[in-house]
């Protein structure tokens, strides 16, 4: 009775301690013979692309384990500042304060532009409005325009949808669309803008609500959503987003997608980033609805 009690105690203590013994540190670059892990975290806009890349890369380089998570550009950048991630995905540039915080914490962020993206303005299929100028979109989202009638549509209230504040897409939209790219402009989203936690949430709401307007990366637009043609400031031509119009610069709301590493990448991380700029990887970019970069 007593001896079996002691054995039980020893086994339960081991069961509690052993899981804590195995720890894979985030940046473990090994020689190609050992398995190395790359942690990749951040933008939800980039996450599908990063996942597709990770899957393809593991086929050609099985010794490298890639772990991809979303959470928003803000999350990825925070992780880079805290030193808990190898590659941070961001759909917006790192701010100066963030770069400074990273340096203060001992990280040295290096920026790579890995693809381009268009922000599509989406509405319900029943909505008769086809085109909007950038100023009109800015006025809609800042709360100045509240009814579709003012834009030539039906007499319906406008329901504004947006991503959460941790999304790079949200920040980009605030700076380039609501504030029309002006640094001094302090206009904010209207306080009754719905902040939905995912692109799927935005899509689900727009699909069944004719009052709704939303924005998201072109790669997330499905056929049951209507894309609006956008005219740049001072222009009268309405352009629809596509790979061609992004690369030619005609579509006014297009942005670069970034990956940040801690210092100039070496070893497995460098090989992965080099592969990302290769033709195979950029073809995946196109397949997912983003715009490839050439390097």
């Amino acid at each position: 009775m007593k001896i079996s009690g002691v054995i039980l105690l020893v086994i339960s203590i081991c069961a509690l301690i052993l899981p804590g013994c195995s720890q894979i540190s985030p940046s473990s670059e090994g020689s190609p013979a050992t398995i190395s892990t790359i942690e990749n975290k951040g933008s939800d806009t980039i996450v599908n692309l990063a996942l597709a890349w990770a899957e393809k890369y593991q086929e050609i380089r099985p010794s490298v384990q890639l772990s991809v998570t979303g959470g928003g550009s803000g999350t990825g950048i925070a992780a880079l500042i805290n030193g808990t991630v190898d590659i941070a995905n961001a759909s917006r540039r790192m701010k100066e304060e963030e770069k400074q915080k990273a340096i203060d914490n001992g990280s040295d962020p290096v920026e790579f532009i890995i693809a381009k993206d268009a922000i599509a303005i989406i509405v319900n299929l029943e909505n008769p409005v086809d085109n909007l100028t950038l100023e009109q979109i800015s006025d809609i989202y800042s709360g100045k325009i509240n009814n579709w009638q003012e834009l030539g549509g039906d007499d319906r209230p406008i329901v504004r949808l947006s991503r959460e504040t941790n999304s790079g897409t949200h920040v980009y939209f605030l700076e380039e669309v609501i504030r029309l790219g002006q640094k001094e402009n302090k206009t904010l989203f209207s306080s009754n803008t719905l902040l939905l936690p995912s692109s799927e949430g935005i899509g689900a709401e727009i699909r069944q609500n004719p009052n709704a307007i939303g924005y998201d990366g072109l790669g997330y637009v499905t056929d049951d959503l209507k894309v609006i043609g956008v005219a740049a400031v001072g222009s009268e031509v309405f352009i629809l987003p596509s790979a061609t119009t992004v690369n030619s610069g005609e579509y006014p709301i297009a942005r670069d997608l970034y990956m940040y590493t801690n210092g100039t990448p070496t070893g497995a991380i460098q090989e992965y980033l080099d592969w990302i700029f290769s033709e195979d990887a950029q073809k995946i970019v196109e397949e997912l609805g983003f715009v490839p970069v050439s390097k």
Partner: protein
Amino acid sequence: MDTSNLRREHLITFLIKSAGYSAIVFVGMIFIFLLLEGLPAIQEVNLSSLFSSRWYPIEDYFGILPLIGGSIIITIGAIMIAVPFGIGTAVYLSEIAPRWIRDILKPFIEILGGLPSVVLGFLGMLVLAPFLRKLLDLPTGLTALTGAVLLGGIAIPTVVSVAEDALDAVPKSFRDASLAMGATEWQTIWRVTLPAARSGVLTSIMLGVGRAIGETMTVMMVTGNAPILPKGISDLFSPVRTMTATIAAEMGEVANGSVHYHILFLIGIVLFLISLIVNITASAVVFRQKKRQERILS
């Protein structure tokens, strides 16, 4: 008892005592952690801006009033649904329903309580929100009302369980005496049994409130997360942002130690205090009930 048995007794008593006290220790430690991480916010952000009505943390607008208001209005809505349905079901199950109905219904109610909140949130987003939008001709279905309906559904099993136990505990003699004096069944339930079970029923409502206030995933998916300060009951039909959804959505992106980080912990402290107040009120009511009953019976 010989010494080894005595030692085992002491050991078991000690283990059980520490298990009991550990609950207090854990709650205390959590509260201290919250205070350590959340109180710096009061120094970093001045109080007038903390109590403003604009929440936009990435541009340093830290008004937490809309968030507190959002949680409160959703909880009020959830209680307005959970109390009638919950207490009604409990009364039905314990006083009116025949044995075989009760045996079927009770497990189903337990299952309703076991549904993951994410699943309910998903259903709310895809089914309930469009339905409510069309039914009530609202701009959007993602409102406090949708959140309140779902939260009420989540709270009902809790309310039913505890209230039903409380009603069961009322001695049969109470009911018999009332019926013997010529009261109808409903008069007995409404004027004798329910008042006698008052403390348990109130506890069940408080537990329902606690459940509703702390719910995160469901409200994040169906309330629209727009930080609007609710000013009256009619704001039940507009989107809101709860404290829980704010913490869940934003905690991932904050840099450790930043002002935003401290403010989120401050919100956690507010949530903790609200739960504490709800539970203390429930206990105080029960305590006073017991004191009164002791006085009456002695």
